[in-house]
């Protein structure tokens, strides 16, 4: 108990982006000085503010274990999951917290993610088959190697950090974007799927993979090691090879 008290005397400053559409037309920053705890993550600090200082602070969170994808914010300008970003990595300096970049702000730290939800549907992220096998036939066989081919693209938690890190998305909002393309690739590479051609038609467009100029920051910020930049480059390669094949062997294209 003693040890805890002396720790609690130390404080840390949070500069938090506020936007309350019913009260103001422009955002502001609000500064909170709160107790510093070695084992707190940024989300703990926000919860402290909400519970004890200012109940009107608005943000999303749920699992607090880095898997639900709801707590993404800009922490000192870098997109982070606040439930796995520790105060101790910034202390004693102040921390600036903003909503994820490149998205409209609904209120305070909560962004509007309609755009992503629409893009997710657009890339058809589900198994497409010419013929569905009956369940009685048992599972589709898939070796660990086949699983390995797409597994990391299936780890996406839809946290939107990659969109916040992507300058292309910031400048060209039509860009389908890293996570949606990675998820399309996840199905393209799944041995059970037969919808690759359909999906590539959607992806091989100006708003799709060709909008990407390989900044690579999406992969750097991704908390789930999805490597969306890799997914996009691989899709580009597949699309280019497909094009070549169609040009060189037009009759091979049934």
């Amino acid at each position, binding site marked *: 108990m003693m*040890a*805890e008290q002396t720790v609690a005397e130390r404080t840390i400053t949070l500069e938090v982006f506020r936007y*309350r559409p*019913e*009260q103001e037309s422009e955002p502001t920053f609000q500064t909170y000085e709160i107790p510093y705890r070695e*084992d707190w993550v940024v989300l703990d600090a926000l919860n402290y503010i*909400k*519970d*004890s200082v*200012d*109940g*009107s602070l*608005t*943000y*999303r*969170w*749920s*699992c*607090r*274990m*880095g*898997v*639900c*994808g*709801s707590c993404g914010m800009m922490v000192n300008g870098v997109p982070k999951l606040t439930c*796995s970003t520790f105060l101790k990595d910034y202390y004693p300096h102040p921390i600036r917290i903003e909503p994820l970049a490149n998205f409209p702000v*609904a*209120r*305070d730290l*909560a962004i*509007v993610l309609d755009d992503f*939800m629409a893009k*997710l*549907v657009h890339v*058809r*992220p*589900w*198994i497409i088959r010419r013929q*569905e*096998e009956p*369940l009685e036939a*048992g*599972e*589709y*066989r*898939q*070796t*660990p190697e*086949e*699983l390995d081919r797409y*597994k990391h693209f*299936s*780890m*996406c*938690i*839809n946290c939107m950090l990659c969109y916040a890190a992507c300058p292309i998305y910031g400048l060209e909002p039509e860009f389908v974007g890293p996570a949606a393309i990675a*998820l399309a690739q996840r*199905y393209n590479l*799944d041995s*059970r799927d037969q919808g690759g051609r359909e999906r590539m038609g959607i992806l091989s467009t100006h708003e799709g993979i060709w909008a990407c100029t390989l900044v690579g920051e999406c992969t750097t910020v991704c908390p789930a090691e999805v490597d969306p930049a890799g997914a996009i480059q691989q899709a580009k390669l597949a699309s280019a090879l497909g094009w070549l094949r169609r040009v060189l062997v037009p009759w091979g294209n049934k």
Partner: protein
Amino acid sequence: MVDVLRHDLLIIGGGAAGLRAATAAAQLHPRLNIAIVSKVYPMRSHTVSAEGGAGGVIKSNDSLDEHIQDTISGSDWLADQDAVELFVREAPAELLQLEHWGCPWSREPDGSVAVRPFGGMQKERTWFAADKTGFHLLHTLFQTSLQFSSIRRYDEWFATRLVVENGRCQGVVAIELRTGQIRLISAGAVILATGGAGRIFPFTTNGAICTGDGMALAYRAGVPLKDMEFVQYHPTGLPGTGILITEAARGEGGILVNKDGYRYLQDYGLGPPDPWPRLRAMELGPRDKLSQCFVYEMQKGRTIQGPYGDIVYLDVRHLGEKKINEKIPFVRELARKYVGIDPVHEPIPVRPVVHYMMGGVHTDAQGATPLPGLYAAGEAACVSINGANRLGSNSLSECLVFGARAGRAAAAFAREHPAADLAALEAQSRDEERRITTTVLRAEGTERVSTLRQEMQLAMESGCGIFRDEASLQETCNRLARARGRFMRLWLDDRSRVYNTELVAALELDFMLDAAEAVAYSALARTESRGSHQRTDHPQRDDARFLKHTLAYRTGGAPRVDYLDVAITRWPPAQRVYGG
């Protein structure tokens, strides 16, 4: 008047149970107009955090009967055996359906689905996707659901009340969070798939959204809550945060040791320790027993004191780095991140943590509640297949099996009973809007949501934990009643409409107080010990009086507690034997 939102089938909840209900109904009736209301985007639902796996018989060395027996003895004979049979029979097809929809189940070298051992199971039958099973299951279901254009989603809408008219449930009132509008959504049938209520306790594996909303919604509509006293403690949570270290860590061979490095479970009828790993023994015993053993060890002074209470160690070092990375990579990631320990080199500090509600909305095997038009599935419901203690990995499968069943049954009901009494429903909706605005949003009291929430949680922990007795439970009931009184004098800092998360937290607290009350009073009334409900003043199981489900009905004051016989078919009550 704004136009009414009308659907045939309305599902509250976008977790495994809700999404499975929606897809089952959509597959069966392509023209049915289906809606999913969820207070978070579906892929944020707490199913996402399930780690270990989903149980279902698939291998040739296994049999349906063995899964049934394990489930029944795991439940300490409080499960309905007819429901368990249905469940075990249908689980494999459900898991295969997920496979066909693309779930990245872990595989054997020959390409067939791999299974792992789990606590209380005599055979390996837990399907897994490394140790992010719930995550993959949820995203597969969600992405699959996107192809059904008949499913309309209300993402980030918070249901506050069921509307009941003419003796049947015909929809809900919900807040659209981004605008703050309070709207009626009417439907021919409603399914509650709102998940658990772990947040009524301070230390839980459950995420912020697990606040028992659906249980309270049904309870307020006069539907009884069943077996609420059975709250599962998982033996291995990380101290401080309560983040779960999956049972798969033990399934793969991890051991639990006390401060002397001794595998203490052998002292409590779960041994002998070797050979290890061994099914249904030692660390692969059921969760209720393992959590109770921790308390015995603590009383003997053989646990280790840490800054967040006593701990023991979960040791997986002997598995080696390769196996850890392959089978339980998330365990390694979580331990490193949240307790600064690499399980490859050091044992993980753990303690029991509130994990799962065996109880819930009283339903039959079709998911139907006693209120016509109202169905429930998943953790919010109690069918019951879990009885007094759920076996690990049965819950995800339960969400699928009974989610699909409820989806089909509710769809059939909805096709025959469209929402009819719209004017009356609208009137209820306006009432509800008035209640929320005057008694919560603009309440003129002084009490903070967080203060009351903490008070409720501490009351639950101190009197309604792993071991309980009459005095402790009575004290909890009294404290809860006082907290309920204080809730009438609330004060919110946030009085705006748009995205008011403080309002949501207040309404969730309101729901949690109901769920907590049902837990505490049901526990007080059950004067025996069974499964996860351990009364130090009544340490024996008492089949003569309590081979029965508790039904708690809401009244103005303390709930009315009633009982219902357990369905026993082929497996007469016996002693639970593990180890050996």
